[in-house]
């Protein structure tokens, strides 16, 4: 077992087979730097719980193909990313820091899926982005590719 400590000082025990999906921790273990507790100063306990949930589920991913559990795993992934934006971004930051490739892929794809076909207004509102382009600049960019700003699939809702 490997012990992980979140930045709000909570400790979690995780099986080594699960935790080595993180390249970062795998390297630490291989280098003998993971003797007692591994502190994770960038990750809070709430996010770490999510990440551990993912790692535990994906522990036998290689075997899933053989045992026909692929669908189960797919369903888990779909449920897993069903979270708010802020939580998703926290998990992305954690996955990036811990270097968990598959989790990074899953979460970034989920973020992209939520943004695709959204109207500009919806994207700004969902992600709380302040527009710093002038109206003239905006118009200039639109004139460059007017086809991108029209079409029946453009979705103006923010969920």
């Amino acid at each position: 077992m490997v012990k992980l400590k979140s930045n709000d000082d909570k400790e979690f025990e995780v099986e080594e087979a699960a935790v080595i999906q993180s390249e970062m921790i795998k390297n630490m273990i291989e280098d003998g730097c993971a003797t007692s507790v591994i502190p994770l100063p960038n990750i809070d306990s709430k996010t770490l719980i999510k990440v551990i949930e993912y790692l535990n589920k994906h522990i036998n991913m290689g075997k899933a193909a053989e045992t026909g559990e692929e669908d189960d795993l797919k369903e888990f992934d779909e449920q897993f990313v069903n979270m708010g934006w802020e939580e998703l971004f926290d998990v992305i930051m954690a996955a990036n820091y811990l270097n968990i490739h598959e989790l990074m892929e899953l979460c970034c794809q989920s973020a992209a899926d939520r943004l695709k076909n959204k109207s500009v207004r919806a994207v700004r509102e969902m992600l709380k982005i302040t527009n710093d382009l002038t109206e003239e600049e905006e118009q200039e960019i639109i004139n460059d590719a007017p086809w991108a700003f029209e079409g029946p699939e453009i979705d103006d809702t923010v969920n």
Partner: protein
Amino acid sequence: MHFFKSDNKQKNNISEHVQHFTIMHFPRVIMLEILSRLPIKSIFQCKIVCKLWYHLLTSDPLFVKMNQTRSHNIPCILLSNGDYSISSILELKAGYDYYSCRHNRPIVLSHKFHLPPGELPLRVVSSCNGLLCLVSGRIRYENHSIYINNPLLGEYFKLRLPEWKKSLCPLTYRFRFSESSEQYKVLRFAVMFGGIRDVVELEILTIGVDEKWRYVGIVPRPVWFFYEKIYVNGAIHWMDCENPSSVVRINSFNIATEEAKTLPAPPGLENSTSSWTLAELGNCLCLIDIIAFDPFDIWWMKEYGIAESWIKDRIHGNGIPAAIRCVTLAPFIIWKDGEMLMQTDSDSIRLVSYSRKENKYRRVKVYGNGSARSICIPTFYSLKTIMGDNFQVSYVYPKIEIA
């Protein structure tokens, strides 16, 4: 779940010092990880979300690279009209249920896509790595022009053509990239007047290298359509047509080595050249029966260059849904779990997907004008990065300056 509400709840549950991220706090690389996964149309829309995104999506080399590695997952289909003038590009989407869903349809990029300006209609003769080779005017007349164009970026340049000779009548051009020599080449096939009828002259221009077109030699005269993309194993392919009722002969020309060869045809083919079309499907050279409909045959050259590897598939047309009854089916890509995507015989885009496993046809619901020609994987790579910095490139739209 409405995230604005859950948002406040979350904040109460966590300690004060934890900084929650918005997307703008992400390092550039992570932001690009997300943005590079968007469909093309969304990418263009996201350019006006804010200045940072504008710069990331228009000039960040990492964005271009990431988008390129992902775009193969979401093929685009080049749609063109009966005369091969380009009508639009249709972007398919990964993970989309093409068979039942009516809303959330695939995205059609408009025909106002960034093609070179001009009065004459532009027709696509060849395409490669998301770049188009376009002709304006009639190829057989002196005043035609050839453009290489990146339709996503609106970049283009006009090729300097070989000196016009009255004794030569150009037939077609091909634009290809050679992976092994990492060069783009344009090939021109031209018939010699008063010469031998069944051979053509082949000239080549290596882009960024050759000052002038090089005469390469004579090759068998192709029987082919205006646009074709039969690129397998580093070579282009065609059937020759000395006599359409004669047996099938397949020729290849390797883009890197510039060697012409003959490939073995399937053994014991009963029909002549005129009843087959040569194609590339799933990286295999194929011969598709274009006369018969139900059933029709597809021959696959499973191992390139090996005569014994030709395998025949007999495909029955009887399972076709009544709504799309047709007399010909033209397969053009292998997609989703090995299914074959086929254009049916109509001027509008009507597609069916055929699953060999289930021996079943399904109508693929897409929308757009024109018929499907081939797949095209658009690229955000500038012609300059591809052809060299010294390359003179023109722009369909003037460059925008945003501070």
